[in-house]
């Protein structure tokens, strides 16, 4: 069936901020969809609250709304734009839920808007637990013994009936929020209760626990005619019990015989056909390892994290094909872009192995529970492609950037044999290293399989790697042993560590014996047809398939690796824009990245895509083959910056700001020199290595001081110290990882934080805008509410900021992007830091100012001058709109993580509120970030002593507006003295008026809690903050954020009353 000509104007709903369970994969899917729809000549209207995405770019859609993803707002947009259809299945669970609410309420029918792709009934049958079970029963597909319950008691009765352990899965939540496995009735009560609370429809599924079964996924795609193929199947190394997003996954499946493979494939096709899905769909199975018994775990009637992975693993663009199916095309009409010859109805085949490993945020949350279960905890993932599973695993491990580049985890060496055996029982993020350590100490594959239930095949692969380690350690280093180690994924550095041979000697042997990386192509068809899309991975097999012939000069753009706290999708935005700008300038572009979720790893973006780890050796292999003109590192976040030195040593030209100048910005002592040269002040400080030195510096400066390691991102390990004991704790923590660079100790200056991004061409500077952070210094800029244009900065200070920016850009000879953070205190301007690279705020500032920031920066890098462009120099003209970037956290996913804000970044994503004035913008930003703005109700205030005076005006305002104030004893006494009536909570944890009772009964609208020092999880404050997270009640740990919310309350306008803004018209 060709394109449906009735479709003219389509609304695409995005997935909102990056949170755990919903990351960059939906920007990839949404971007592909928008591009396809536009190519087909349709008018595209886009709504997404996430400004860091590529899909919200001006050239991606005709009308773009960076607005809260709520039913109310989407209705407003529909009324304004009158689209004839909605594409709901590419915006993750968020987009799908909104579309379903609009469809179920009859609104879409009333407005004559058609839901493209799968019908609402189909979606409901897949998403609603009971409907899904009934449907599976009707087509004879086995589900796991389970029951949908809406209250605890009937859940418990059913659990007793089928026997513990059981799994609890809340309906309509993403990433399995609130679910878990219960082994005891007490655990059951706890998990079931929280699951019911978190479910949009107050439903949970209680099911028989089948942990230990194999978990297998199929990605299936179907069109309106009923044509149906499986794009890819995947096998989780971790058996059922660990969320698939937290599992190590391989593609294709490795341990299924053809009978089992086909049995599940047939089942997947039967299911997608019964659900009448039109588009992509993901089916998860549990397979009994000892029989043909299987069960369908769940179906996602939309593109998903797994479909992004499958697309990158096979080269088959699922989202793109799904978008075409949605507008009427069938699989036999859609061309396969990789071969240019075959059609989308050909099932891809792989002639390599793909390994995915999740990226977890545990190094950020030291108190967090690292156990893995049905609640996803990973913020991102890495993927590796290789001809052997071992090499895939090794590549993926080093792509994680956790300072680990093999299966050796040094900290495990101190465990006794007994302890390490005990560790094997834990299902956490370190499991593969623990398995390796046990194999090293003589445990057998069989024994490990008994404990972990991981298939022996996978354990044997880990065993192979352990054996290679042993061989390297014991035998003579020669060409054969190196060849073998390379084939199985060892870097020269690891070989050197194991053999004690020098890296140079290893390289010499490799060169003499021609042991070099050759690149192979991902072509969807195992080389059956010639492929035209250059998408490569490295191998140590013969024959290099990377095409070297080109008339153009080549430029390498280094990507930013997995999504993690502190380095998110913003940097992918920058990398992709840099590629586009380079293409316009006539270069051949080469991108290197390892994140399967992103737009940058779509083979349509750069001229060549290398799916490889971002380590010096892996990048050098590419450089050796491609011999590029130069490389750009300033757009790929800290991951790319870290490679600067290595690239220079390889003789690669660093395009833009030089390596020396980057170092001058990052190195503490060199930077002090820079500031001296510019006559700019910064908070006083010193560099230290030990606790004693740190104490000396801190006492000389006077407490409080800010402590941080150098060369980090997202303020990792950064904290404010108030006394000597804080210093001891902090320095010890930082020194757990060997530091190549000194630790910085600075005087803490309390003031307003200002952030500036700037483009410099060596002569002039263009500042897209000056941003003001609402939270004072001490809260990481990534966790602060950022306002553009500034609202509370006087001209004198603003001028000084611009002047300093110019001075620094000149002094550091910045060519391209830079980002500076300032402190403003009593009209004094101090510098916090300079990042000689693009930053987190670039996408948002580009969108609200209408300046193509990365495009300009890239042109500047190649010698164009700002004064020759039409954008001018100095500060770009101030926007008429106010844009407020608000952080979004994923605390509910990470059990026991402390939620209080501080110098270390904790947010996973961001939303934007855009409006004509500040208060409307802040209302939108709060709504988009999921905070309800109450006009009446109850507020709990519990603050530390030194904040009591400061909280008073806010408490007064809230009290005067009619809010009822609850407070803990100390806070209450203080407020009473100052004329504010409060309800005193005599005891925090006991009695009818205890905090848990009030919060759980939904009686508290929000909490203001400032943390006392220390991160101990036994403290009341910590427990109150966790309680708020579990009950989805906003808890503000910075008074500045609470004041911002008050501004929103005072606005009194409802969501419906505030105008939606098409940012293409800003």
């Amino acid at each position, binding site marked *: 069936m060709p394109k449906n000509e009735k479709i003219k104007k389509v609304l695409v709903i995005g997935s909102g901020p990056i949170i755990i369970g919903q990351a960059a994969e939906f920007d990839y899917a949404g971007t592909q969809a928008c591009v396809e729809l536009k190519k087909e000549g349709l008018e595209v209207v886009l709504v997404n609250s996430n400004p860091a995405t590529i899909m919200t770019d001006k050239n991606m859609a005709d009308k773009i709304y960076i607005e809260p993803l709520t039913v109310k707002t989407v209705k407003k947009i529909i009324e304004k734009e009158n689209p004839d259809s909605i594409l709901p299945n590419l915006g993750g669970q968020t987009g799908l839920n909104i579309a379903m609410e609009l469809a179920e309420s009859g609104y879409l029918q009333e407005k004559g808007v058609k839901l493209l792709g799968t019908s609402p009934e189909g979606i409901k049958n897949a998403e609603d637990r009971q409907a899904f079970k009934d449907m599976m029963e009707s087509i004879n597909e086995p589900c796991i013994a389970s029951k949908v319950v809406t209250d605890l008691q009937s859940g418990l009765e059913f659990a007793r009936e089928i026997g513990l352990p059981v799994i609890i899965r809340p309906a309509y939540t993403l990433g399995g929020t609130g679910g878990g496995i219960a082994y005891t009735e007490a655990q059951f009560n706890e998990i079931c209760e929280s699951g019911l609370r978190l479910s949009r429809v107050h439903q949970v599924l209680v099911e028989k626990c089948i942990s230990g079964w194999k978990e297998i996924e199929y990605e299936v795609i179907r069109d309106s005619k009923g044509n149906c193929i499986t794009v890819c199947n995947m096998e989780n190394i971790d058996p059922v019990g660990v969320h698939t997003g937290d599992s190590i996954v391989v593609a294709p499946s490795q341990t299924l015989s053809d009978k089992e493979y086909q049995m599940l494939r047939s089942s997947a096709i039967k299911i997608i056909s019964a659900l009448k899905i039109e588009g992509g769909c993901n089916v998860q199975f549990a397979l009994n390892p000892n029989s043909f018994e299987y069960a369908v775990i769940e179906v996602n009637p939309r593109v998903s994290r797994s479909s992004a992975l499958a697309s990158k693993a096979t080269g088959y663009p699922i989202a793109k094909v799904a978008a075409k199916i949605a507008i009427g095309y069938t699989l036999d009409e859609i061309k396969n872009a990789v071969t240019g010859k075959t059609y989308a109805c050909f099932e891809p*085949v792989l002639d*390599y192995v793909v390994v995915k490993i999740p990226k977890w945020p545990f190094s950020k949350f030291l108190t967090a529970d690292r156990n893995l279960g049905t609640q996803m905890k990973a913020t991102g993932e890495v993927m590796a492609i290789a001809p052997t599973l071992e090499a895939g695993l090794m590549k993926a491990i080093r792509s994680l950037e956790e300072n680990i580049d093999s299966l050796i985890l040094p900290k495990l060496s101190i465990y006794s044999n007994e302890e390490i055996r005990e560790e094997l029982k834990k299902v956490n993020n370190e499991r593969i290293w623990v398995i390796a350590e046990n194999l090293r100490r003589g445990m057998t594959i069989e024994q490990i399989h008994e404990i972990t239930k991981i298939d022996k095949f996978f354990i044997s692969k880990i065993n192979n790697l352990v054996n290679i380690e042993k061989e390297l350690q014991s035998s003579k280093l020669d060409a054969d042993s190196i060849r073998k180690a390379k084939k199985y994924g060892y870097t020269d550095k690891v070989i050197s560590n194991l053999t004690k041979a020098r890296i140079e000697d290893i390289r010499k042997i490799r060169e003499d014996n021609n042991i070099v990386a050759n690149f192979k192509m991902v072509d969807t068809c195992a080389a059956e047809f010639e492929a035209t899309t250059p998408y490569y991975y490295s191998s140590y097999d013969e024959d290099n398939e990377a095409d070297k012939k080109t008339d153009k000069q080549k430029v390498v753009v280094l990507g930013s690796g997995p999504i993690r706290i502190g380095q998110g999708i913003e940097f992918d935005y920058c990398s992709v824009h840099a590629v586009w700008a380079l293409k316009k300038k006539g270069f051949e572009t080469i991108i290197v990245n390892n994140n399967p979720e992103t737009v940058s790893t779509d083979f349509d973006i750069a001229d060549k895509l290398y799916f490889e780890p971002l380590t010096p050796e892996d990048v050098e292999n590419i450089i050796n083959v491609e011999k590029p003109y130069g490389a750009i590192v300033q757009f790929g976040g800290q991951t790319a910056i870290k490679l600067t030195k290595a690239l220079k040593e390889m003789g690669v030209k660093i395009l833009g700001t030089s390596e020396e100048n980057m170092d001058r910005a990052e190195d503490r002592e060199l930077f002090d020199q820079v500031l001296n040269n510019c006559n700019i002040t910064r908070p006083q400080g010193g560099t230290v290595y030990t606790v004693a030195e740190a104490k000396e510096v801190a006492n000389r400066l006077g407490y409080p001081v800010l402590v941080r390691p150098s060369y980090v991102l997202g303020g990792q390990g950064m904290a404010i110290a108030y006394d000597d004991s804080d210093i001891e704790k902090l320095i010890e923590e930082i020194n757990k990882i060997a530091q190549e660079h000194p630790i910085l100790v600075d005087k803490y200056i309390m003031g307003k934080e200002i952030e500036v991004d700037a483009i410099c061409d060596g002569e002039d500077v263009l500042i897209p805008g000056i941003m003001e952070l609402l939270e004072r210094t001490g809260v990481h800029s990534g966790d602060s509410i950022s306002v553009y244009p500034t609202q509370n900065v006087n001209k004198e200070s603003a001028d000084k900021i611009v002047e300093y920016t110019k001075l620094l850009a000149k002094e550091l000879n910045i060519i391209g992007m830079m980002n500076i953070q300032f402190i403003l205190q009593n009209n004094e301007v101090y510098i916090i830091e300079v990042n000689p690279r693009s930053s987190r705020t670039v996408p948002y500032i580009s969108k609200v100012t209408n300046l193509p920031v990365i495009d300009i920066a890239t042109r500047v890098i190649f010698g164009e001058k700002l004064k020759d462009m039409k954008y001018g120099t100095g500060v770009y003209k101030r926007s008429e709109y106010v844009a407020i970037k608000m952080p979004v956290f994923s605390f509910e996913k990470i059990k026991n993580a402390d939620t209080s804000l501080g110098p270390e970044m904790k947010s996973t994503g961001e939303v934007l509120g855009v409006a004509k004035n500040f208060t409307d913008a802040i209302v939108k930003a709060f709504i988009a970030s999921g905070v309800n703005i109450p006009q009446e109700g109850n507020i709990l205030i519990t603050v530390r002593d030194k904040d009591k005076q400061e909280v008073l005006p806010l408490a007064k305002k809230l009290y005067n507006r009619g809010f009822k104030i609850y407070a803990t004893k100390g806070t209450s006494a203080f407020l009473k003295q100052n004329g504010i009536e409060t309800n005193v909570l005599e005891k925090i944890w006991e009695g009818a008026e205890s905090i848990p009772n009030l919060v759980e009964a939904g009686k508290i609208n929000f909490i203001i809690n400032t943390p006392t020092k220390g991160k101990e999880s036994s403290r009341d404050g910590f427990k109150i903050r966790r309680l708020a997270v579990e009950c989805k009640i906003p808890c503000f740990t910075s008074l500045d954020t609470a004041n911002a919310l008050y501004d929103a309350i005072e606005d009194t306008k409802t969501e419906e009353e505030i105008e939606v803004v098409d940012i293409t018209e800003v």
Partner: protein
Amino acid sequence: METGYLVLENGDIFEGKRIGANKDALCEVVFNTSMTGYLEIFTDPSYAGQGVTLTYPLIGNYGIITNDAESRKIWIKAVFIHELAEIESNFRAETNLDDYLRENDIPRTNECQY
């Protein structure tokens, strides 16, 4: 392990490690891109007299399950694979691929690089 060679008519020579039956085979070389079902391919009569290259690199993972054979015997004359699994892992596996090929007198080149 002995070195084995795949010598094509046009003069291309591929080197690998030779295991399985210790004999030479003269045959037409074809390929199959399936990611599962190696036994089914070996026992498929349409491959009679041919040498099969399996493009999927990891072979033998689930061992040999004789029930899954397409016919009563192996029809291929030789097989070229990238890597043989060290252990077979499937609840129905009766033996491993290596032993099976040797018993059935089929030469095989392992670690073929393509």
